C-alpha cells in the first residue's frame, strides 16, 4: 500500500498507542491535516494557540504517565510551542512535539514561515529530529517515543518538512520497529546492588533520617514503594512541589512540601537530619536555598535515573543511579523495620509549634478555597494550578492523595500553564473531576483555551484567585524591594464572568466563602460545560512560611500572625485522614497509568 509521509506518521502514532493529539493547522502541515480528515481513531483536539497545545500535551502526560503529543505548523506555530516544550523539559515530562517545516529544498533559504526549530529547541528538548526522507519516519517516531518516555523522561521534537509529509512510500505495516535499540542511549534503571545495601545500612544507623521525595518518584510510579519504605522505617517524608502525591499527604508520615514555601516542620526536619534520602529529586534552588547550609549535617543517599543529577548540586555519600521503583524494590529487601523514636517526636513538636496557618475568619482566602475544593471533591479532584501565590497555597493546602493528581509547572514556573494543562488532564481522565486553580494574572495568559474546553464540552472548573494583582511579585516587592509596588497592579482586568460567558462557559463571581461554596457545588453539577469562578479574594496576603531566596531555615519567615492563628479552632480540619481508600486509589493510578514507562 502506498501512503503519504503524513499517513505514515499517523500509522506511527497508532503503533505508539496515541489517542489524542493537541494541534493547530497551517501550510506546512496541510498533508498531515488532510490525513487527519480520514482518521477516526486518533482524536485531534483543535486548540486556540500552540502554547496551549504544548501545555495540554504536558498536562495529559502528567495525568497519565503516557507521552503527550502536540502538533504545529512551521515558523510561528513551531515557535509558539517553545514555552510549552521548555516547561516539559524542566519538569522531565514525556512529550512528542511534531512540527511542520518548509520543504527540504527550501530549508536554509529564509523561506516563508521557516524557523530552525530543531536549532531553537536543542536546549529545551531531550532530543530532536529533522526528518529528510519519509522512509525514515518509522524509525524516527519509534526513537522519539522511546527517548521521550524512558530514562529521565522529556520532550522530543520531530520536524517534518512539507515534502516529507507528501512523499509517498510503500507501507506494509511491519516497517515499524518492534524494539528500539539505540547504542548510544541506554538508561540505567537497576541501581547498583552494593550501593543499595550501603543505603540500607545507612538507614539502619541513622538517628534522624528524612525522606526527600521528588518528581522522579511520580514518573516512576513508585507511590507504593515510597509509602512502604516510610511505614516500615517510620521515617518522615517530605516531597518537592513536583513530588506531591508520591505518598498520600493525608498519611501521618507525610510532612508536606519542603523548600522556599514548604512547611516549617519539613524544613526544620531536613535542616537537622543526619541522613537525607533523596529519591528522584534534584536539589533545586527553591528547595535548598543556600546550598552549603542545606541539610548541613546529613549524609546523603541520592537515587536518580540521571547520572548527571548525582553530585550536580550536592555530592552524595551514597549515589544510586537507577529507576526509583526498581531501586526501592531492591532496597526494601534489605531494610529492617525501625520504630518511631525521639526524632519523630521532635518533628511532631515542630508540627505543633509551626503549623500552616491562615485566618479562618470566614473571609475569602485562597487557602480556604483550596481546602474547600479538596473537601467537596473528597480530595479526589485532579488539581492543576497556574503560577504564583495561589500555586504555593495549593501546594501547602491541597492534600494530594495519589500520584498524577497534582499538575503544576515547577521548574519553568510558566504562568498560563494551568488552564491548558487542566484541559489535557481532562481529556486523559474524562471521568474524573479536574479543577484548575489560577490567578488573575496567569489566567490571562492562556484564556483563549476556554474555547477549547467549551467546544469539547469539558466539565472543568476554573477557580481564579483574584487578588487584583500579580501577587507573588507583589509579595517580593513588599518584602525585598521596600514596598515599591512596580507594575504589579491588576485592578483593571476584564470581567471574568462575562469573559467566561463569551466563551460559552458558565461564570460566577464570588466575594465570600459561602458564595464560593455555593458556586462550587453548582459547578460540580455540570457534566459538559466549563465553569469559571472568579473569586474576589482578600488581597495583599503573603505566602508563609518563606525562606528568602538563597537563604536558610534560620531566615525562614513565619506567618506574621502565627501565634494568634495557631490556637484558632479548625487548625486541622476534617478530611485529613488516611484510610484504605487512599491506598487503593494510588494503586489504581499506578497500575493504570504510571506504569506506562516501565516497559523498557
Amino acid at each position, binding site marked *: 500500500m502506498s501512503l503519504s509521509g503524513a499517513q505514515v506518521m499517523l500509522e506511527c502514532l497508532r503503533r505508539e498507542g496515541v489517542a489524542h493529539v493537541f494541534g493547530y493547522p497551517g501550510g506546512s502541515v496541510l498533508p498531515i491535516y488532510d490525513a487527519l480528515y480520514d482518521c477516526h481513531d486518533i482524536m485531534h483536539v483543535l486548540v486556540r494557540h500552540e502554547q496551549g497545545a504544548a501545555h495540554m500535551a504536558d498536562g495529559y502526560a502528567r495525568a497519565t504517565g503516557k507521552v503527550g503529543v502536540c502538533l504545529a505548523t512551521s515558523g510561528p506555530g513551531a515557535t509558539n510551542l517553545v514555552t510549552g516544550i521548555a516547561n516539559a523539559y524542566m519538569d522531565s515530562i514525556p512529550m512528542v512535539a511534531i512540527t511542520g517545516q518548509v520543504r527540504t529544498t527550501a530549508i536554509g533559504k529564509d523561506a516563508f514561515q521557516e524557523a530552525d526549530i530543531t536549532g531553537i529547541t536543542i536546549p529545551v528538548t531531550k532530543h530532536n529530529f*529533522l526528518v529528510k526522507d519519509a522512509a525514515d519516519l518509522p524509525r524516527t517516531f519509534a526513537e522519539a517515543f522511546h527517548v521521550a518516555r524512558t530514562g529521565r523522561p522529556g520532550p522530543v521534537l520531530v520536524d517534518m518538512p512539507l515534502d516529507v509529509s507528501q512523499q509517498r512510500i510503500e507501507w506494509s505495516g511491519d516497517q515499524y520497529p518492534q524494539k528500539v535499540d539505540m547504542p548510544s542511549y541506554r538508561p540505567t534503571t537497576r541501581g547498583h546492588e552494593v550501593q543499595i545495601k550501603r543505603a540500607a545500612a545507612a538507614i539502619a544507623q541513622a538517628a534522624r533520617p528524612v525522606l526527600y521525595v521528588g518528581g522522579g518518584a511520580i514518573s516512576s510510579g513508585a507511590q507504593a514503594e515510597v509509602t512502604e519504605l516510610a511505614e516500615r522505617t517510620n521515617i518522615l517524608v517530605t516531597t518537592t512541589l513536583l513530588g506531591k502525591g508520591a505518598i498520600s499527604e493525608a498519611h501521618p508520615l507525610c510532612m508536606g512540601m519542603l523548600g522556599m514555601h514548604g512547611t516549617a516542620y519539613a524544613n526544620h526536619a531536613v535542616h537537622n537530619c543526619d541522613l537525607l534520602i533523596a529519591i528522584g529529586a534534584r536539589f533545586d534552588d527553591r528547595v535548598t536555598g543556600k546550598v552549603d547550609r542545606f541539610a548541613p549535617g546529613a549524609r546523603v543517599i541520592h537515587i536518580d535515573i540521571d547520572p548527571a543529577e548525582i553530585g550536580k548540586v550536592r555530592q552524595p555519600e551514597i549515589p544510586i543511579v537507577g529507576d526509583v521503583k526498581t531501586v526501592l524494590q531492591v532496597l526494601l529487601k534489605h531494610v529492617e523495620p525501625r520504630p518511631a523514636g525521639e526524632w519523630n517526636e521532635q518533628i511532631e513538636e515542630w508540627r505543633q509549634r509551626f503549623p500552616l496557618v491562615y485566618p479562618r475568619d470566614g473571609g475569602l482566602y485562597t487557602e480556604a478555597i483550596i481546602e474547600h475544593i479538596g473537601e467537596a471533591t473528597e480530595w479526589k479532584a485532579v488539581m492543576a494550578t497556574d503560577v504564583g501565590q495561589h500555586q504555593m497555597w495549593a501546594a501547602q493546602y491541597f492534600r494530594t492523595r495519589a500520584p498524577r493528581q497534582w499538575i503544576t509547572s515547577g521548574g519553568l514556573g510558566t504562568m498560563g500553564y494551568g488552564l491548558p494543562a487542566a484541559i489535557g488532564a481532562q481529556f486523559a481522565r474524562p471521568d474524573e473531576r479536574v479543577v484548575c486553580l489560577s490567578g488573575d494574572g496567569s489566567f490571562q495568559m492562556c484564556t483563549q483555551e476556554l474555547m477549547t474546553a467549551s467546544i469539547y464540552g469539558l466539565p472543568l472548573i476554573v477557580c481564579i484567585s483574584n487578588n487584583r494583582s500579580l501577587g507573588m511579585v507583589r509579595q517580593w516587592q513588599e518584602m525585598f524591594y521596600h514596598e515599591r509596588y512596580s507594575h504589579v497592579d491588576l485592578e483593571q482586568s476584564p470581567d471574568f464572568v462575562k469573559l467566561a460567558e463569551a466563551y460559552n462557559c458558565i461564570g460566577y463571581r464570588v466575594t465570600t466563602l459561602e458564595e464560593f461554596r455555593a458556586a462550587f457545588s453548582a459547578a460540580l453539577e455540570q457534566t459538559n460545560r466549563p465553569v469559571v469562578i472568579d473569586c474576589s479574594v482578600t488581597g495583599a496576603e503573603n505566602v508563609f512560611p518563606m525562606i528568602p531566596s538563597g537563604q536558610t531555615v534560620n531566615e525562614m519567615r513565619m506567618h506574621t500572625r502565627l501565634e494568634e492563628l495557631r490556637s484558632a479552632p479548625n487548625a486541622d480540619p476534617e478530611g485529613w485522614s488516611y484510610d484504605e481508600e487512599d491506598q487503593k486509589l494510588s494503586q489504581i493510578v499506578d497500575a493504570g497509568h504510571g506504569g506506562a514507562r516501565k516497559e523498557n
Partner: protein
Amino acid sequence: MALTLSGPSSVQGQQHIITVLVENHPGVLARVSGLFARRGYNIESLTVSITENPDVSRMTIVVGGDELVLEQITKQLNKLIEVMRVVDYTEFAAVERELALIKVNAEPRDRAEIMQIVEVFRARIIDMGERAFIIEVTGGTDKIDKIRDLLAPHGIREMVRTGVIAMARGSRTA
C-alpha cells in the same frame, strides 16, 4: 573536516583533554558546542574530524575546570543522544598533538635566527615570501606556545592552530 573553536585562554583549574565519539549526524557539533556555552563550561579548543569508522566523528575538546566540573561535563555530554563515548585523557598516557601555521616577519637579517628556531623545534618552513615565512609546527601545546614566544619578537603576522587532538598510547582505543 577539522574545526577549531578557540575559547578564552584563561582557564581556571586544571586543563583536561577529552575525546567525544559522536554519531556522524548533521547538527551534532551544534549540540555539543551549545552544551558547553549553555552550561558555562570553558572550551579552550574543540576539533572535529572523521574517524576510521565513517559513521562516527571524533571531537577532541580541551576544557578547563576542576574535577567536579569535569564530571558534570562528562555526564552532560553522555546525556546527548548522539554522544557514544566520552574519554578523559588526563587520566592516562596519551599522545597529544596540535598543528600550527605561523606567518612570521622574516627580514633578511633575521632569517638565520628564524631558521635556527625552526630547526630546533623540528618545524618546517612551508612558504618563503620576500618579507615573511609560513612555519608549520606540530607538537604538544607547550611546544607550540614556546615557538610562538620565540618568534614573537620578529613579529607574528598571523597564526592558526588546529587545536589539540589526542590518542591513547599502546593498544588501548577510545
